[in-house]
């Protein structure tokens, strides 16, 4: 009997968690697809799951160890119908509930119809629920902000104010309405200029950073010299130096030298802050290349520089690619230095421009979201294309965030 109570609460608890999670997501989906304003009544979930658990056990006790899906289906349908006539849920949500319960039932049957509800089975089923739910949960919390950013950028001001919970993509808009925020951001707020600045700064940063870090990394990884271990360990320390400690003196120095308010100032600072990271990632990779390859080339009379150019570099293309991508992302996303150094609109990078031009109560929110989408999309695209390299590179040498 205690075993049954134990099971009962287990089923009750997990059906609540699952249903709650799915109800929220189902609700969001229903807002976004069906434009439904009829929102799921959450307080019923507890009642619902309680009834479900009772039914499950009632049937199980009547027909020993056999729970028929048909029964569950009928009972769920009856319950749902009860809510339906009370106008508390709509047909679409009813469908979600039924499908969840049936899937749930199939899962439960596998474990709970066994004669002994052992610890082991409990754990296995527990972990299985946890895993599926967590995967849904994680995907949801990650996708949702990005989806909202994207959807809001397509809406018109009126729709956003009238119904902020509307998540649907407005397919019925004409093309020019659909992209109206983007067009406004580009034409009114000089966004293409920001994008151009960002692109220039990022590419220069990647180039300069690689130009300095490749020889440095090679020297640290391969060559024997006094102080090598010290340099190797101080790289790590250097990239723990907070940017805020650098920004005030650099502001002062650059103001005195007169190149604070320029892209040039960023082109100095960004490479300097990324070189230690790049160097660290690259030297890790260089160490992994078999030294015999280089040694044999050296014996054959190739110079060190020749070895680097002909053997090491071609072999480390994946690492160089991942470092470039990572450095590009840092430069593209960087806000603090751009925020402090740049005053003139013509030099703004995208983050700087977004902050000053669009983060204002006067500016409609969909413009801000459109700007956010435009700064995010290039990074995510690059990331998706080169994901494999980046993941390898990031974990090869631990990396700043």
């Amino acid at each position: 009997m205690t075993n049954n109570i134990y099971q009962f609460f287990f089923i009750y608890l997990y059906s609540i968690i699952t249903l709650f999670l799915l109800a929220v997501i189902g609700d969001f989906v229903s807002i976004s697809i069906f434009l439904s304003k009829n929102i799921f009544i959450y307080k019923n979930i507890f009642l619902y799951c309680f009834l479900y658990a009772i039914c499950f056990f009632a049937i199980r006790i009547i027909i020993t160890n056999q729970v028929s899906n048909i029964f569950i289906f009928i009972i769920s349908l009856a319950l749902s119908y009860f809510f339906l006539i009370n106008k508390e849920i709509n047909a679409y949500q009813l469908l979600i509930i039924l499908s969840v319960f049936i899937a749930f039932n199939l899962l439960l049957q596998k474990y709970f119809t066994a004669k002994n509800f052992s610890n082991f089975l409990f754990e296995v089923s527990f972990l299985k629920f946890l895993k599926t739910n967590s995967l849904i949960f994680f995907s949801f919390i990650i996708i949702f902000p990005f989806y909202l950013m994207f959807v809001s950028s397509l809406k018109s001001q009126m729709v956003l104010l009238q119904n902020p919970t509307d998540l649907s993509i407005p397919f019925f808009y004409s093309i020019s309405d659909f992209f109206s925020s983007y067009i406004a951001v580009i034409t009114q707020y000089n966004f293409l200029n920001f994008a151009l600045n960002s692109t220039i700064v990022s590419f220069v940063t990647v180039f300069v950073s690689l130009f300095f870090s490749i020889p440095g990394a090679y020297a640290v990884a391969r060559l024997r010299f006094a102080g090598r271990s010290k340099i190797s360990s101080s790289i790590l320390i250097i990239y723990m130096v907070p940017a805020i400690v650098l920004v005030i003196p650099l502001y002062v120095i650059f103001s005195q030298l007169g190149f604070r308010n320029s892209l040039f100032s960023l082109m100095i600072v960004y490479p300097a802050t990324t070189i230690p990271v790049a160097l660290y990632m690259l030297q890790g990779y260089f160490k992994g290349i078999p030294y015999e390859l280089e040694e044999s080339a050296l014996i054959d009379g190739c110079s060190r520089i020749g070895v680097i150019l002909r053997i090491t570099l071609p072999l480390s293309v994946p690492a160089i690619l991942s470092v470039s991508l990572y450095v590009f992302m840092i430069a593209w996303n960087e806000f603090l230095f751009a925020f402090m150094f740049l005053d003139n609109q013509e030099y703004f990078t995208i983050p700087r421009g977004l902050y000053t031009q669009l983060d204002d109560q006067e500016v409609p929110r969909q413009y801000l979201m459109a700007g956010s989408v435009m700064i995010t999309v290039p990074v995510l695209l690059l990331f998706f294309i080169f994901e494999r390299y980046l993941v390898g590179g990031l974990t090869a040498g631990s990396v700043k965030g």
Partner: protein
Amino acid sequence: MFNLNKEAKLAYTMLIPTISIVFLIILFPIFGNFWLSFKEVKLGDLRAPQPIIKEKLKTKDIEPGDDILIEYRFKNSSQKKPIFNIEITDKISEFISPVEIAEGCSVNNNLLSCYFEEWKPKYNEKIIFKFKANDNFEIDNFNPKESKPRGVADADNILTNLKFSLKNFQKILQKNETIENIKVTFLYSFFATIGALFLGISAALLLEKNFLGKGFFRGLFLFPFVSPVIAVAFTWVYILDPFKGFLNNYLLNNEFISEPIFFLGLKKVDFLGFDFPFTLFIVILFESWRYFPLAFLFILARLQAIPKDLYEASDIDGATRIQQFFYITLPQLLGVISLLFILRFIWNFNKFEDIFLLTGGNAGTRTLTVQVYDEAFALSNMGTASSVAVLIFILLAIFVFIHQKIAPKDIEE
């Protein structure tokens, strides 16, 4: 067989550009920060005081032979500091010659040059120079403003002089705010680290086994980390907006709440009898959300390196999954977790943008880094800003020292 000396020389030549740029842009500014922290520098002091000279023609309808009066206005740009050794040069028209000019000035080859020893602060004087129009004077060719007068002067530069004081440190340590900010910084760094690690471990455990779509999920889980902070922060601010935001409206529609919650503007909420820092909590949630992917990647890499026979052996011994997690997986991950903890803690400690963009440091979320910004640009005091930065740096040096002691060497490789 290789010449060691030659190799070392090559290594140094390869490293020198890298080291010098790092020195110039990272180590030198750190030194500069310490330097500034002992000086009372205001934002306005960054522009050195200089002489300002303007000229104005006072005479009209000039005929050859007439006197011409030109008024020069000399001004010290600084309200507080004198300037010394002022040298002024101005090209004057070839059609006029000097009659009466101020003391210290002379004209040579149509070049007016003046020298003054010192101008006091707020010095501002108009001096009339008397010239005479030459016989070949033509009014059309005469324009006294064709060349701008130039002035050079020495001034005591507060940035480079050797006067130091401890007043900045006194000021910031006397502020109650500073102690509060240190507390907030620690709370924030610690809990955001814990949150990121917790989510990271959970996410890594989810993707430990191979299944269809694993690559997709791994890519997806990295989204918050690779996206620009400004875009995700603005999106969160928008979602949490009390009136226009999604979350408040959603909760209102569902009758969970009766009035909007100010997610990013509630310093304290009474929670079971004690003051719960609500907005700080939201910011910590954001941090955990944004930085769990890094922890996730590292832990996933480590998870997949755990030898499988450990699990097989424990299976035979009858260990359950939860026992396996606590007795095998967790001990194996301990090294990478402790390393990630200290790294993440340091990086959170250094974070500025995230909080600045979410709350601007309001509602009980002002960390030390935000205080640096506020001191420097809201209060225009570079000196106190640097001294707060020095405070950060010292605290950080302690953490880095701990990190060097704790960090297992094999994981760093």
